[in-house]
């Protein structure tokens, strides 16, 4: 009997939250527009691809010079365009390009005569990451060029063996991480709003005065908010599948993980909203803490590849486990040492612990007149 009563409480609280939210269409707007924008911004970032925009000034257009430019293009490092010296200078000073490589006038003749060639490279040393990319990539292009133009002279070469059957493009990989960020940010944000609103509108009094168990109240809020957010997350996932082209290898696993991750996120949000009691505090805190957590949870690649400190911090983030599980559902491979079962258990743990903590906060709440 008591189980049936608890289920009725959960259902009633969930229904109430859904009805309140339905009166506020902007609630849906927030749930949809934030993750979609997040996705859009990161796809634009991924499309930029980390290739350095570079101008090439060709003072010699001989076959070896052309071959060298091809070697630069094949080095996975540059987005090259050929231009004249004056235009290249203007572009680098305006910050539009990162480097100017000038092919000397006697490039072909010097190489054929066995004379030393000095290759002028002007670098916009904006920051060491990009500057080092250029400093590595130009010599790499030189050696690759020699290996193809003079194969008998350059014998040491890299032979690549890949672990995965095929490469995964950066955009589909990152898009999956962004779906997780969308689930977490939306869930925490909406959960905190739903909980804090009860305190601001004083409806928390009615909940406190009811004989319903506190955990059932917290669970009802989680269920209601998960249902409210499910549509928004389905849209974001649909965009990733249909427009980005990331097809889930395990669709049912994906659906289950999305619900579980959303439940964990909403539970954390409800805990934050119950503790802070004001939307004005809960909202910036939810966003301000979730964003940095995203960056340390391995959205761009395995978190432990960030080093021991980064890998250790990631272990405390629900997003870390969710990203790994989602990558498995989409691409079918593992991106972190914990197994899929561990990921699921940890996410269940986060959801349960946050829900219990929320019911504890509710049980300590006092109704003031």
């Amino acid at each position, binding site marked *: 009997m008591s189980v049936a009563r608890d289920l009725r409480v959960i259902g009633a609280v969930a229904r109430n939250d859904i009805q309140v939210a339905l009166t506020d269409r*902007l*609630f849906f707007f*927030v749930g949809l527009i934030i993750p979609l924008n997040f996705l859009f*911004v990161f796809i634009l970032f991924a499309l930029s691809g980390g290739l350095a925009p570079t101008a090439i000034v060709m003072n010699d257009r001989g076959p070896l010079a052309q071959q060298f430019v091809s070697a630069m293009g094949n*080095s996975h490092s540059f987005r090259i365009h050929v231009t004249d010296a004056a235009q290249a200078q203007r572009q680098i000073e305006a910050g539009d390009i990162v480097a100017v490589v000038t092919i000397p006038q006697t490039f072909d003749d010097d190489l054929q005569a066995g004379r*030393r060639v000095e290759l002028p490279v002007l670098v916009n*040393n904006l920051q060491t990451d990009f500057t080092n990319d250029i400093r590595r*990539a130009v010599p790499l292009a030189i050696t690759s060029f020699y290996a193809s133009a003079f194969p008998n002279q350059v*014998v040491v070469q890299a032979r690549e063996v890949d672990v995965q059957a095929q490469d995964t493009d950066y955009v589909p990989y990152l898009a999956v991480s962004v779906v997780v960020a969308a689930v977490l940010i939306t869930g925490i944000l909406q959960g905190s709003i739903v909980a804090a609103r009860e305190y601001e509108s004083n409806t928390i009094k009615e909940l406190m005065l009811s004989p319903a168990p506190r955990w059932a109240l917290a669970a009802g809020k989680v269920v209601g908010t998960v249902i409210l957010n499910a549509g928004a997350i389905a849209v974001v996932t649909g965009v990733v599948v249909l427009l980005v082209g990331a097809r889930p290898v395990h669709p049912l696993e994906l659906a289950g993980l999305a619900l579980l991750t959303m439940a964990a996120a909403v539970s954390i949000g409800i805990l934050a909203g119950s503790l802070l009691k004001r939307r*004005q505090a809960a909202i910036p805190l939810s966003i301000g803490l979730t964003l940095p957590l995203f960056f340390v949870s391995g959205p761009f690649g395995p978190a432990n590849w960030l080093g021991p400190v980064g890998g250790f911090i990631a272990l405390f983030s629900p997003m870390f486990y969710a990203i790994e599980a989602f990558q498995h559902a989409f691409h079918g491979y593992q991106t972190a040492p914990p197994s899929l079962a561990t990921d699921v258990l940890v996410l269940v743990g986060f959801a349960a612990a946050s829900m219990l903590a929320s019911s504890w906060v509710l049980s300590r709440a006092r109704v003031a007149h």
Partner: protein
Amino acid sequence: MSAARAVLALIRKDIAIWVRQPPAIAATVLPPIVFMIVIFVASAAVGRNPVALVVLDDGPHGQKLSSILQSSDAFRVQMASADDAQNLLDNLQVAAVITIPSDFDARFDSGQPDPVTIRINNLNLDFTNDLRRSLPAAITRFYAQQSQSPVDMTVQETDLRSQDVSILQFLLIPNLVLMVTVAGIVNCGLATAREFEDVTIKELLLSPISRTTLIAGKLLAGWLTTLLVAGVVMALGALTGVLRPTGWYASLAVGEIALLALAMAGLGAAVGALLQRFIPTIAIGVNLSIYLFFLSGGISVVAFLPDWVQTIAHFTPSYYGVHALQMAIFYHSSEQLGRDLAVMLGTTVATLVVGVLALRRRAVA
């Protein structure tokens, strides 16, 4: 005189409300601290992939290549036997295994094709391409160190700027701007929207002060809390030695941050006054913050983005804020300072006007 007193009273009121809410203070101060920690951790690993190195040849050439790989700033190298390396790769402890074969020296000396194997966990093209570049780059260094290198071409590098800036320093500026943007737009926007939701706006509108005074008060109160965020980031940056502007440029940087914070608080006040409700203010405020962060080079250097995105970036105030701060802090330069300051000042004035107009439309119900 009375307008100044009214502005001061509004600032005192908003700050008093803010101070009485420890969660609001935590919401303002905690995110920049967490973000700073994340940046410190992440920047230490950028561009350096963990690899296991298996060296099966004790000859001088094999050892030379091994030492080049170990000192390369593209890798974090872990020496391993072939079996251990395979385990490390299988357990995702390393991104790749590089193997220098047992006949490396013999093949090199006899001029035969001499492959060095790299087994890559090609999870995504970003990491994979990094690794695809890095081993050939090490081979290039290997050839450069040979007494009689067949590669007879050298790079003659000229740097555009007088000094290199580390990735950590470089990332801190857009992230400082992000924190200032979120604090300004979201906090100040919510503080303004709260007046409407709590209906306290009635009292303010019925008081004998102008709409301009009212918006100026809200803007300046939001500005002060936003400055606190900037202060936390700057203090942490100075304490760790990562962000230490010197001389006149230190004052200039502080002034630029103050102006940017004013512009963002103004934007927040305008958004809050226009929308008058929490939820839409959040929707607009958060999205605006994400875009301003992205368009000011927070995630990727603006020059790397598509042309049409770069064009849009030129219409955002945070782009100019980041540029002004980079020039002052990193390069001790006032290049295009007038333009940057004018944009930030213009944004502040424009948002003030929008906020006042939004209040003029409001009738007390």
